[in-house]
């Protein structure tokens, strides 16, 4: 089931009448989610990603715009008639019911033609429990389960009605780091096995990048960029997106373009053909640095962190807009840790230029 969002807008009236300022949580969001894909809504808190999810679920009514499931306009349809499964951030499992009762609960609500007999309900419940691998825990209470198991129960409860669309609100935020890795793969597997169009919300870019077919990066209610994770990472549309994606984060430096050449401080670091002379913000991915004794970028060496496979070099540069520059290079290179400075050359496709005012990306030809 494809999901189409058309100029979706949500405005919350201001709580304080005197202040009189309304909050635009989601502003003119248009996007067609292809059938059977896993979509990650990504952004810092307050960017409108959860509001978008709740509008798709029907728990919140949009102020403007339309939502389609397939060809059906569901904008005015109430939540229960949309055929969605929703997994809440803190799972919202009914604490007084066993896992089995929790999973059966949505089925017991079915009315009329959809009504199931007891055996079919149990069969369905066990089927979905096996899918998320909790069929051993059916008689336990939620309080007797670990966070990861509760998460699976919540997914099972959302899936048991065979929803047209599965929605997950910060599905991994309540799990510890190890469980998070495991569970996100699990979500991916379950989504692939069921083929249900799935939208999930997260503020963790790594989470979104690792399992999504497509990601939507949002900021203050406005969609910044939509695309496949790698594409968005490699081609950020503006400084915000570039900063938001990637760990460690992108290094940001002040620079200027003169005569088709990029200067950082006094160093001419790269040729950037086709860019007019102007001050620019330079974003360099940590993996965009190469150790080069004759390299154009000279930084003050502060620290070298060995991580086994890679070496992380922490240095500083007068033009850097962050306190430090972090570069990640292959551990095959030996770094002279006693040196005072370190010189890099840059990989052109890992260097992005942004307009110093609008922060929009400035394209240039890589030679």
């Amino acid at each position, binding site marked *: 089931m494809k999901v189409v969002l058309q100029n979706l807008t949500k405005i919350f009236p201001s709580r304080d009448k005197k202040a009189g300022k309304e909050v635009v949580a989601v502003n003119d969001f248009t996007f067609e989610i292809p059938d059977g894909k896993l979509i990650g809504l990504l952004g810092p808190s307050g960017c409108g990603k959860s509001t978008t999810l709740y509008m798709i679920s029907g728990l919140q009514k949009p102020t403007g715009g339309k939502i389609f499931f397939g060809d059906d306009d569901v904008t005015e349809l109430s939540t229960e008639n949309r055929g969605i499964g929703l997994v809440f951030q803190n799972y919202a499992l009914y*604490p007084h019911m066993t896992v089995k009762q929790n999973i059966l609960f949505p089925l017991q609500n079915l009315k009329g033609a959809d009504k199931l007999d007891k055996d079919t309900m149990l069969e369905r419940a066990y089927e979905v429990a096996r899918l998320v691998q909790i069929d051993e825990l059916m008689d336990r209470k939620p309080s007797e389960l670990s966070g990861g198991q509760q998460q699976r129960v919540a997914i099972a409860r959302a899936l048991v009605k065979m929803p047209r669309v599965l929605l997950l609100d910060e599905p991994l935020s309540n799990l510890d780091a190890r469980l998070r890795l495991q569970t996100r793969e699990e979500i991916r597997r379950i989504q692939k096995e069921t083929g249900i169009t799935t939208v999930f919300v997260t503020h963790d870019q790594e989470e979104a990048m690792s399992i999504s077919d497509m990601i939507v990066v949002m900021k203050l209610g406005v969609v910044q960029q939509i695309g496949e994770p790698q594409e968005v990472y490699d081609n950020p549309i503006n400084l915000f997106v570039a900063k938001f994606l990637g760990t460690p984060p992108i290094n940001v430096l002040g620079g200027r373009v003169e005569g088709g050449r990029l200067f950082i401080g006094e160093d001419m670091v790269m040729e950037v053909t086709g860019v007019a002379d102007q001050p620019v913000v330079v974003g360099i991915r940590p993996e965009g640095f190469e150790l080069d004794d004759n390299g154009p970028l000279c930084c003050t060496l502060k620290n070298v962190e060995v991580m086994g496979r890679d070496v992380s070099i922490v240095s500083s540069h007068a033009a850097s807009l962050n306190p430090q520059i972090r570069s990640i290079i292959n551990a095959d290179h030996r770094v002279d840790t006693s040196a005072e400075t370190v010189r890099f050359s840059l990989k052109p496709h890992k260097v992005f230029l942004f307009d110093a005012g609008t922060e929009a990306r400035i394209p240039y030809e890589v030679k």
Partner: protein
Amino acid sequence: MVDSKQQWKAWLYLSPAIILLLVFTVWPIINTVRMAFLDGYNGLAIVGGARFTVGIANFQKVIGLTSFKTSLYNTTLLCVLTVPISTLLALLIAVALNSIKPLQKLLQTIFFLPYVTNSIAIGMVFAAMFNIVGNMGTAGNDIIITAGIINNLIELFGGEPINWINAGSTYAANITVMVVYIVWNALPFKILVLLGGLQSINRQYYDAAKVDGTPRARVFTRITVPLLSPMLAYVIITGFIGGFKEYSSIVGIFGEDMGPAGAPHRLNTIVGYIYDALPKMNYGQASAAALILFAIILVVTMINMQVSKKRVHY
């Protein structure tokens, strides 16, 4: 842990409370037990210099008395009727209050007013509402004049006025008035507790239920009530404890005679019986009755606790 050199200070600061508790709570409890188990313990006998033997004669005497049996029956009946009714009503009102947004605070205040109003005063208002003023006319041609708003309402809808609380009223009518009054009086506290419980239930459970298309009745029985069960248990247990101590509500409506004119003590309760025994200096019997009341409350509370173990989800 307090430094041992400083401990005397701690005791000093605690002493006002401890002394008051010892004098006015601990000693009376001990003395009640002592008096109850001294056969025939009686204020007059003490003056006469009598000595008492330890025994259970006070209990035997009390249990044998019709006045005590009446009191026990009235108390139990009022408890059994009012606790379930008031709890159910409070639950419905709390849920309704919780689901409306405008005027919620105002309505909350209105529903809480009876709690801060003197129960004797409320009783007098109720007595006025259920009032009926005498029979006029000659035999076979009775004209009943009513001055109570309840009877006025009944007449408005074409019914016959009922003698609720005045001379010649029936026991059933009296009990009905008491049930209405006690339930109304018990509502505010229960609503307050249940509303607090409702407001602490995570909204996401309701959102989850909404996503699943759960009918409202099912949300109520399968989600709201179980999640509210700790508060319900608390309200029911304290309701029974309060119910067995019922006294002032009856005084409020019927006065210290504990019954309509012509049938005094008809609505007496256990606490009423204890108070009645005191001016007669029957301290032994009063103490025995108090201990019986204590035993009843203990048993009822234990039953409540047992039931909650199965039904309450903490």
